């Protein structure tokens, strides 16, 4: 620790400046967080209901939709594409940092899956600058990079991502599509999560109970499946945004507390150093006086 009072005073000042910034960031993130959390939570009901409906419907009917069960190219009369089937990962992060471990949690989750399976098999779509940077740094192939929004996300933001993934899935370019994102659990807890987007996961077939489908399975499934997939992507976007703001708010609050503690400690050593200076001066003066008297 520095012993020069002027040096300590300078450090106190700079820590105070940082504390001011983190305080302001905490307040803005808190406001954004409340909004983002409300959005994420209010759309959960719809997201869960569409998923459940689709699952129930698929379980009950013998109808096969390409987006639900993977159809092999040769079954449809197409030649099998060359090379091994590839896997697409949609990695959702934020554009901005200073949110604690938020981005690295999501990125590590994705990387651990990519490493386990071998990185040659994967292509990435990234949302957010942090994810794109990480993918580039580790040398993964990125087929599209979107910038992240941190508020006012609409279903229109999920559409281009979904369309790209669905088109390439139907072209047999990819055998699976995953989304890696941050699930918002609470203000203090956000969990990096992986879900399989396409094909629409495995669903047990239990053909119990009849169900009338109007106008017909083709139209209803097409409508419902696309809607569900699009909305799943949208939900992951809003969950990630709610997580981002929550993580940032908590990180800034911690920074604030740490800054307060640091200021306290520094003030203490400043006072000590100042007192030491005064004592030294006094003893010098009295020493000089003694010398002159003698």
């Amino acid at each position, binding site marked *: 620790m520095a012993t020069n009072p002027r040096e300590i005073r300078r450090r106190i000042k700079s820590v105070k400046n940082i504390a001011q910034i983190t305080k302001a960031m905490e307040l803005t993130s808190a406001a954004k967080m409340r909004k983002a959390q409300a959005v994420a939570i*209010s*759309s959960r*009901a*719809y997201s869960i*209901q*569409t998923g459940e*409906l689709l699952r129930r*419907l698929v379980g009950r009917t013998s109808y096969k939709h390409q987006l639900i069960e993977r159809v092999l190219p040769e079954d449809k009369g197409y030649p099998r594409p060359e090379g091994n089937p590839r896997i697409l990962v949609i990695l959702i992060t934020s554009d901005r940092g200073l949110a604690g471990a938020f981005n690295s949690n999501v990125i590590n989750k994705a990387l651990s899956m990519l490493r386990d399976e071998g990185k040659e098999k994967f292509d990435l779509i990234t949302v957010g600058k942090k994810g794109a940077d990480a993918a580039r740094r580790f040398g993964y192939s990125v087929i599209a990079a979107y910038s992240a929004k941190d508020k006012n996300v609409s*279903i229109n933001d999920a559409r281009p991502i979904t369309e790209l993934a669905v088109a390439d899935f139907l072209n047999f370019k990819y055998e699976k599509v995953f989304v890696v994102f941050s699930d918002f659990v609470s203000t203090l807890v956000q969990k990096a999560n992986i879900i399989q987007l396409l094909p629409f996961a495995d669903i047990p077939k239990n053909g119990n*109970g*009849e*169900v*009338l*489908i*109007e*106008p017909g399975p083709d*139209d*209803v499934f097409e*409508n*419902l499946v696309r*809607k569900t997939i699009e*909305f799943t992507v*949208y939900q992951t976007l809003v969950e990630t945004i709610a997580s981002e703001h929550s993580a940032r708010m908590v990180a800034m609050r911690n920074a604030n507390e740490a800054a307060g503690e640091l200021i306290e400690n520094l003030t203490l050593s400043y006072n000590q150093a100042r007192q030491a200076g005064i004592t030294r001066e006094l003893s010098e003066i009295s020493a000089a006086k003694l010398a002159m008297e003698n």
Partner: protein
Amino acid sequence: MLKLKIITPERIMIEAEAESLSLPTDLGEITILENHIPLVANLRAGEIKFKKENSEEFFVVSGGVLEVKPGNEVVVLADTAEFGHEIDVQRAEEARERARKLMSESYKDEKTYAESTALLEKNLARLKVAKKHRTRTHKNLESGSLNE
């Protein structure tokens, strides 16, 4: 009684009991009563009405999916849904005109044409419901003043 739940991406709009429910599907308007067999249907843009006791409530949807579950449970997953009083008539009219214009310009481009048709249908339905809401409330006001 039907257990009715109407859910949009933004909110759970209605959670109520109803005697009957009428909605616009791809095959035309249908009405759901008690003990309906399980049904899943695509919804079009239009007006949804439901009756409970002596009152009737209505609102507009822009499309979605209807599910009738066993046990008189009805779930409507709407893309968007609005009550009459929530509709901004002027903006709906502007949107309708925009859609109409886009439709006449984009007859060559299949995708934009389909989109603009859907937009037009949606706004026509919104205007219809908004208008119905206005006449309804006026009637209520008149009868209210008579009672006084």
